[in-house]
């Protein structure tokens, strides 16, 4: 039997009440040299060129943040507002409070008896990217930037376009030109301007860095990246809350830039620092596609240097970042926590997508296939033990990558057709003939 731990779905798209004022509790600080910086649309330290990230006055929060207060708030990411960098936007999407599903059948298949699946396929634009974009959209409004933009491997395109539509501001979405059509259609539907670039994601990102400087637009994952990245912490917050304010033994997550991976750790660390959970070790396991695995390669080789991959070659487009910004930090985390970073061949990813759908009723896009396959690989490696409680993140919906499911099985794109296993031939609209087909053994 499948058990679900679920908070009620978000009921409205309006802003949550602003109980927690005081952005004095929040500032930016350089991750490299520690220099404090006032909140603003900046992401690089002027003193040392290191990355800026958000820092909180956790000591003072310890006195004022309580589990029962959080639990009494409306569902969604803003229920954790004391540990978020900005107040909610004037109008946003109903993001977060997704269920933690007990993956008993899938767990039995991969040798993990206590497997939970964080089902983030059901966010407003069907991926976890709605979480970081919620923070960036709030920041764009706060800083009066007027236009929301991004460099995307696909899921972020939809999330950025949707958030801009809700706010009523323009969106510009830059993507590799050969991205999956479903993701392009998705962003266009929200009214975004989609700009295909004939190159890799890393080419797109490089160009967007300079476009951001020229236009002053709010690029969620460039000049708003310190805010954006904080949104991924809400995955950690929700997992802890769903488990009764405690942590699992292992978290398994996909790695593209590595930002979400590092923010999961930051989220659990902050919950412990403010006294909402007991601090205990969590092994962090990451998954990458074998055709674009710079972080897994560095982890496997024992190196601290993440060598970029120039030409990613994988069906897992959502993770196809050859030059991952947080790759070095992700390696440190996996190594320091006793976890691992697994490289998953595309055939295995496709088979795993089918398994997750068949065994748990959740249709995940390619990154979810990588993640569950990484959990299985870490189990075989011994990083995950038989009695460990494991949470695997399903970060996007399978309808975004409809072709991937059949990779290695059927080369035909897009539509299920005659002859596909499980698909009956078209039958005449007569009961007798349908029954006859059923009685001959389907």
């Amino acid at each position: 039997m499948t058990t679900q731990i679920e908070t009620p779905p978000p009921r409205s798209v309006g802003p949550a009440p602003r109980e927690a004022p005081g952005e004095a509790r929040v500032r930016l600080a350089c991750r490299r040299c520690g220099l404090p910086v006032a909140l603003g649309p900046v992401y690089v330290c002027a003193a040392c060129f290191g990355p800026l990230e958000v820092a909180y006055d956790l000591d003072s929060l310890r006195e004022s943040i309580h589990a029962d207060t959080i639990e009494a708030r409306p569902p969604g990411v803003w229920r954790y507002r004391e540990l978020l960098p900005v107040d909610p936007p004037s109008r946003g999407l109903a993001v977060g409070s997704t269920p933690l599903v007990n993956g008993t059948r899938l767990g039995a298949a991969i040798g993990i008896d206590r497997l939970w699946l964080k089902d983030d396929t059901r966010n407003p634009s069907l991926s976890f990217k709605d979480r970081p974009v919620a923070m960036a959209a709030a920041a764009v409004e706060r800083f009066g930037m007027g236009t929301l933009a991004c460099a995307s491997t696909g899921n972020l395109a939809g999330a950025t376009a949707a958030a801009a539509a809700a706010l009523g501001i323009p969106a510009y979405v830059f993507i590799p030109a050969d991205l999956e059509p479903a993701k392009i259609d998705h962003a266009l539907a929200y009214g975004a301007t989609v700009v295909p670039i004939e190159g890799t994601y890393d080419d797109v990102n490089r160009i967007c860095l300079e476009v951001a400087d020229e236009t002053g637009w709010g690029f969620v994952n460039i000049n708003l990246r310190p805010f954006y990245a904080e949104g991924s912490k809400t995955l950690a917050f929700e997992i802890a809350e769903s488990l009764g304010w405690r942590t699992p033994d292992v978290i398994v997550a996909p790695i593209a830039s590595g930002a979400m991976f590092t923010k999961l750790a930051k989220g659990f660390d902050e919950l412990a620092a403010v006294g909402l959970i007991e601090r205990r070790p969590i092994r962090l396991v990451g998954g990458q596609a074998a055709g674009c695995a710079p972080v897994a390669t560095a982890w496997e080789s024992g190196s601290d240097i993440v060598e970029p991959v120039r030409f990613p070659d994988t069906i897992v487009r959502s993770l196809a970042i050859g030059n991952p910004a947080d790759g070095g930090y992700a390696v440190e985390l996996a190594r320091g926590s006793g976890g691992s970073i697994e490289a998953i061949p595309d055939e295995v990813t496709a088979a795993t997508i089918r398994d997750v759908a068949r065994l748990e009723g959740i249709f995940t896009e390619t990154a979810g296939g990588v993640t569950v396959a990484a959990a299985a690989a870490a189990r075989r490696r011994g990083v995950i033990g038989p009695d460990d409680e494991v949470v695997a993140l399903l970060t996007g919906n399978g309808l975004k990558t409809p072709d991937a499911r059949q990779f290695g099985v059927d080369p035909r794109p897009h539509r299920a057709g005659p002859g596909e296993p499980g698909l009956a031939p078209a039958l005449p609209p007569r009961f007798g003939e349908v029954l006859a087909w059923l009685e001959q053994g389907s």
Partner: protein
Amino acid sequence: MSAVRIPPVLRTATGGQKQVVAGGATVGEVLQSLVAAYPALEQQLLAPDGSLNRFVNVFLNDTDIRHLDALATPVVDRDTVVLLPAMAGG
């Protein structure tokens, strides 16, 4: 001489200029010339041993120099060297 595009956070060190010129036969020499002309850039761009700060990505005509010969990549006149923060995207 090569053109070098300067990101906003470093423009204080170049008197506000978005683009400057610097000489050198390799990317490494161009960066050394740049630092010689604008000494305030050294702390941001280079580690004490002369290697690149890990948070700086350097591109030669749109290609990451790590896909070429890194700092030893040859540079000719009218090439453009672009300096960008590494911590972006994803």
